[in-house]
């Protein structure tokens, strides 16, 4: 950028200098012209003087001398002027003046004097002298004019050359400026074009990235294992992935722009009432919603599948809701697996209980069979009486155990009143042997008349599980306390509203549960008992208590001073049974 400007300035100054030179040349030409003019004027004046003198000579009339006298002053002035601008010509001017003076002194003045005196002026010599003087004067003036003209010609040539130079310079300058502008413009154009190309490239790459990310998103959605349906803000379907199409039975092209509830027709599993339109629910709550449990999806062909689903709002940059995305999956197999696991745990519990019961029955049976053998072998009446009494009491023990066992798996379809005291006492009786083996002391605080509604078999399973856990945790020399307390309606520590009911606590003074184990307690297949446990006990218990609309919590301390675990089960007196709770 700087170089052209400097060059331009340089050229402009060169041009200026040339124009200045040209001006000077013109001035000098004018000077030459003036000198020619002055020399011509002087010559004419000299002619005037001579003409006047000739007239006077011819007529002797002094009036004819007027031009002669009048020429003197302008001639002196012209000579002075010419002298002032003289450069190389003072020699000729001096010569002229000298001749002029000589002419005056030697010819004109004497002639005038002669004529004035009335004399004759026909003297040839005098006239020849005068004429010679005048010729010399003219010669000098001609030289001056010639010199000046020569000078003028030279100067004009010089001026012409200068003008040519100026034109050349102008042309060069114009060319240079044109070139500079051209180059500069080209440069700018290049820059603009580069910038344009760059932004174009950027646009291209952005568009490509966008396309790729969209492709990726599409592929992800298509290959995701869950059904995905996206709706606009009005709940009209915009997109469905393959799984969603398979689960609903609606191909995407047909489903598009239809209201969600028409394609995604869901009802409650138990009541068969239509569930709230998930899109509407998300819109209403404006947040992610897990949809109601136990939802059945009614497919296009009328068949039904159990699903788990959730809905989430789609927001634009301003945070406004622009749509809803639904994610759902078929949980039929999961349900079946869950049911199988529950049955398995029930069997395991039953199996463990059966072993306990077998032990409980085998012991008295052993005594009875031994006593019968002794009686068979023959003994005295006193002894026989004693044997019979003992056998009788042992059989009574068997009966008691078998009764407790009978009530254990008598299951009803509807919830029935359960006397907590009676139920827990039965359980503790059946488990007495286990406590004995473990060396655990069991104490109870069981007030009578605490009844809750529920499924007795399931509640027994829960309490057997909790009490067995507590006994194992307490270990030899430990104690387990089973306590039931009535609970009036109120609020729990977390502020949740509680219905009236009962709190069953199973407290042990075992080593407590380490925090890292505590968080896994309610997970299926988590066990600390190795092969002796199924790892399903607490998970199933949790499910049963939930079904009873109750709350099962575990609190544990590992601090040696105050160690132990408390399992608390809250059961409402009249719970709203959640049939899907297990």
């Amino acid at each position, binding site marked *: 950028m700087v170089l052209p400007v400097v060059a331009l300035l340089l050229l402009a100054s060169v041009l200026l200098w040339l124009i200045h030179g040209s001006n000077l040349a013109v001035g000098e030409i004018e000077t030459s012209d003036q000198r020619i003019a002055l020399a011509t004027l002087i010559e004419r004046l000299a002619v005037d003087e001579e003409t006047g003198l000739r007239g006077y000579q011819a007529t002797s009339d002094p009036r004819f001398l007027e031009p002669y006298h009048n020429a003197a002053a302008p001639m002196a002035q012209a000579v002075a002027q010419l002298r002032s601008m003289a450069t190389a010509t003072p020699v000729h001017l001096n010569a002229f003046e000298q001749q002029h003076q000589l002419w005056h002194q030697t010819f004109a003045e004497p002639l005038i004097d002669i004529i004035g005196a009335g004399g004759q002026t026909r003297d040839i010599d005098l006239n020849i002298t005068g004429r010679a003087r005048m010729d010399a004067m003219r010669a000098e003036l001609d030289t001056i004019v010639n010199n000046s003209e020569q000078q003028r010609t030279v100067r004009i040539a010089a001026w012409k050359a200068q003008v040519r130079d100026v034109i050349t310079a102008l042309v060069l300058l114009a060319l240079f400026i044109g070139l500079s502008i051209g180059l500069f413009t080209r440069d700018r154009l290049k820059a603009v074009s580069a910038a344009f190309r760059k932004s174009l490239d950027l646009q291209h790459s952005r568009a490509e990235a966008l396309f790729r990310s969209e492709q990726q998103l599409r592929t992800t959605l298509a290959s995701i294992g869950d059904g995905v349906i996206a709706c606009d803000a009005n709940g009209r379907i915009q997109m469905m992935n393959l799984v969603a199409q398979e689960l609903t039975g609606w191909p995407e092209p047909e489903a598009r722009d239809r209201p969600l509830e028409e394609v995604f027709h869901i009802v409650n599993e138990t009541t068969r009432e239509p569930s709230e339109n998930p899109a509407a629910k998300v819109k209403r709550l404006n947040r992610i919603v897990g949809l109601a449990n136990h939802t059945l999806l009614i497919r296009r062909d009328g068949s039904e599948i159990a699903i788990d689903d959730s809905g989430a709002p789609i927001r634009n940059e301003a945070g406004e809701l622009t749509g809803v995305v639904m994610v759902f999956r078929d949980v039929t197999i999961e349900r079946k697996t869950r049911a199988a696991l529950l049955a398995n745990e029930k069997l395991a519990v039953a199996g463990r209980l059966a*072993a306990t019961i*077998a*032990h*409980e029955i*085998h*012991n*008295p*049976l*052993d*005594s009875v*069979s*031994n*006593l019968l*053998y*002794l009686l068979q*072998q023959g003994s005295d009446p006193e002894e026989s009486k004693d*044997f019979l009494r*003992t056998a009788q*009491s*042992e059989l009574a023990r068997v009966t008691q155990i078998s009764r407790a066992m009978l009530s254990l798996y008598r299951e009803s379809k509807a919830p029935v009143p359960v006397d907590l005291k009676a139920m827990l006492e039965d359980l503790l009786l059946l488990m007495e*042997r286990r406590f*004995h*083996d*473990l*060396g655990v002391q069991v104490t109870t605080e069981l007030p009578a008349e605490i009844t809750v509604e529920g499924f007795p078999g399931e509640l027994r399973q829960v309490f057997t599980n909790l009490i067995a856990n507590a006994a194992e945790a307490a270990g*030899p020399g430990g104690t387990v306390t089973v306590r039931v307390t009535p609970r009036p309606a109120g609020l729990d520590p977390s502020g949740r509203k509680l219905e009236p009911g009962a709190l069953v606590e199973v407290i042990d003074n075992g080593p407590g549960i380490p925090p890292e184990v505590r968080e896994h307690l309610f997970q299926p297949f988590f066990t600390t008992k190795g092969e002796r446990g199924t790892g399903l006990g607490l998970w199933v218990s949790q499910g049963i208590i939930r079904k009873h609309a109750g709350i099962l919590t575990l609190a544990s301390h590992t601090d040696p001073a105050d160690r132990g675990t408390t399992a608390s089960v809250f059961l409402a007196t009249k719970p709203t049974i959640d049939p899907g709770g297990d």
Partner: protein
Amino acid sequence: MENTSHLVLCVDDEVVGLRVRKILLERAGYQVLTAADGHSGLELFATHPVDAVVLDYSMPGMHGGEVAKKMRQTKPDVPILLLSAYVGLPAEVSALVDVYMTKGEGAPALLQNLCSMLSVPAASQSR
């Protein structure tokens, strides 16, 4: 039924069962020592010239398997009969004793097992 005067140690936490078993074995001609748990059983085993042991499996504090193990460590030649109300005991327990039987199999079976156990001199190697 040989009328020997072998000394048999019975260990069981079931009071009634233990009492009846003692009478049964005494009628069969054995001298009987009884203990209500593993610890006192081991004590008697150490201090008396016991010829055979009838051991209950499930007992508080120390189960029959542990008691049998300790007995084997001090007097490996004394035959042990393990009685249990449970079925399906761990293999390492049943391998430790000479005879393993379930409660309720009846008095004749018990007497038969005890007798045959005592009549084999190298009883501990018979398993």
